[in-house]
């Protein structure tokens, strides 16, 4: 028996508490299979770049010919979306016949990232409007990533959030107003955009819960 196993047995011991500890430790299999540590690193990198960039804006050429300054907070959360997409691409087809609710674990993890993103962005950014943009977009991009897994397959799943962000920046501005669908670039006080982003996240969670890992591997 490995030393780590003996340690765990000593810590966990028999009884219900011991079983709970053992179950919690067993999640390490899932953690390593998804490389979820990288998700945390991407999360930290995104938040750091949002805090450091602050109100710095990237001038995006729109299709009207004007350039529109778009905050870095709109694009930084894509780091996390790409990391989550990479983790989901490591799913095995055999997980479709698992007894454990592996898709629920995936969904729970991504939901936790989305909620944490909103909370941390609000607190740490120091500028509430940037924090709201970052948190909203983080949730929306994660939803698009999960939908992308179903629509485009594992390998191309991150194209959906990235493409949506760029297209929103390019086409979303029109004569000073922002299109209803361009929630990534909407103003922080736009409650409809927030609802749309959160709705996208929810749709993604539902899609992930119902998707087949084997089918997603076919691209």
């Amino acid at each position, binding site marked *: 028996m490995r030393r780590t196993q003996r340690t765990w047995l000593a810590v966990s011991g028999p009884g219900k508490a011991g079983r709970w500890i053992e179950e919690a430790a067993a999640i390490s299999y899932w953690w390593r299979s998804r490389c979820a540590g990288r998700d945390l690193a991407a999360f930290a990198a995104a938040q750091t770049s949002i805090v450091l960039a602050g109100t710095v804006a990237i001038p995006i050429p729109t299709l009207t010919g004007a350039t529109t300054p778009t905050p870095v907070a709109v694009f930084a959360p894509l780091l996390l979306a790409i990391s989550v997409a990479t983790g989901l691409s490591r799913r095995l087809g055999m997980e479709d016949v698992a007894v454990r609710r592996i898709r629920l674990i995936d969904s729970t993890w991504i939901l936790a990232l989305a909620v944490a993103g909103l909370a941390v962005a609000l607190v740490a950014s120091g500028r509430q409007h940037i924090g709201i943009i970052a948190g909203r977009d983080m949730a929306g991009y994660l939803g698009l990533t999960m939908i992308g897994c179903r629509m485009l397959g594992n*390998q191309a799943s991150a*194209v959906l959030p990235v493409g949506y962000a760029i297209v929103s920046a390019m086409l979303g501005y029109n004569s000073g107003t922002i299109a209803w669908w361009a929630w990534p670039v909407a103003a922080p006080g736009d409650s409809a955009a927030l609802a749309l982003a959160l709705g996208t996240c929810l749709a993604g969670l539902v899609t992930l819960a119902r998707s087949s890992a084997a089918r997603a591997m076919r691209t």
Partner: protein
Amino acid sequence: MSVALARRWLHAPARALLVVRSAFRRDAAMKAAPVIGMLVYAWATSAFVASSVDGYGLTASMRVISALPFVAPICAACSAWEVGRLRRGGIYDTTSCRSGLTVTARQIAPTLAIGVAALVESAVIVWPEVATGWMSPEPAALAMGLAVLVGHVAFGVVWGRVLPAVVAVPGSLVVSYAWLVYPPALNIPWIRHLTGFNDSCCLNIYKLAPGAVLAPIVLAVSVTAAAFLVLSVRSRVLAFGAALAVFASCLALAVSLVSGLGFDPVQPRTGAMACAGSFPRVCVWPEHARMLPEIAADAGQIAAVLSHYGLTVPQQATESIAPRPGPAWVFGIGLQDSPAQVRAQVAAGVAPSGPPPCAQHASWSAANSLMALQAWLLLRDGLSEATANNWVIPDAMAIVHRELAKPAASQAAWFRQAMHAATTCAAHSGPGLP
């Protein structure tokens, strides 16, 4: 159903449809082509792109390649996807007769073709919109745009070879796009000129600086060379080391080519001009050649006025801002200008159009003198008070009215003093001069 069987039973149009469908299924670029096409169409028909270029082929050519941010990043992502497919299929690890480079080139050829087709679409839409008569495209600008496209596709190849597709495809899309749109907004001129993207170039008195054309091409070549090395050299360490060395050297070269340029990658335009007349000799850019008789007549009229007052008449009146010996008579006109506007521009061109270069680093207080000079020229040329009022501020008009009431000799003396003040940074005093 085999292709041979399909050929036996299908008619030619249906066969063509089968080929297109196969290409659509097979190539990522074919799937992205409608998106690229729509974005380029929307950009090329926008009010900004369709605005007048004043018959200048360089400006029109730069408008054509200004569609790059909508084309190159998608092509980079498509090439990353295609190379990723080869990687997943183990193509680079097999013992095939064709090299990895050949197989990759074949695989990304549709992506490159779609990118070129998108630029052609941009040209086909933009050129008729902006052309006024015959306009020659600027080969250097178009070559630069093409090289930038190839560079971005090669960039996607490198990413697709090195990283899994799930990271390479969105990563190359974002990085490629950010490289094109972000540097032009920085206050660091040399970075802006490395991207090859400039949607505001150029007024017809400028041309692209050679360094500004070469630098993006050099960078594109370096990225393509890096892709070549990554695909050809077996040893990963050696491949990346060599690629990095090539890229760093080319980057240093590219920076040296653009480091001396200002915020715009331009230099004064030179080249053949259409000329007429002798006193003064009037020269205009070829795209304004049909306005030459009118301009020559206007210039002759103002030359006669200057002679009447005993003032020196410059030998040449021209649109070119390139430095030349002797007094300068530089005017700026547009194809859309009315005859009155043209006459005003020609007349006012006898005076400088702005402060001298020394005024950037020293105090200069002859602004009113400069404007008064221009207004005096307009009024002496017979243009209306209203035209002159639109040209200068009321303080300068007050100076002009004061001088116009004096004898001719006095006006001539004032003219010479004001010209001297407008072209130097020394302190001055005198009637009408601060």
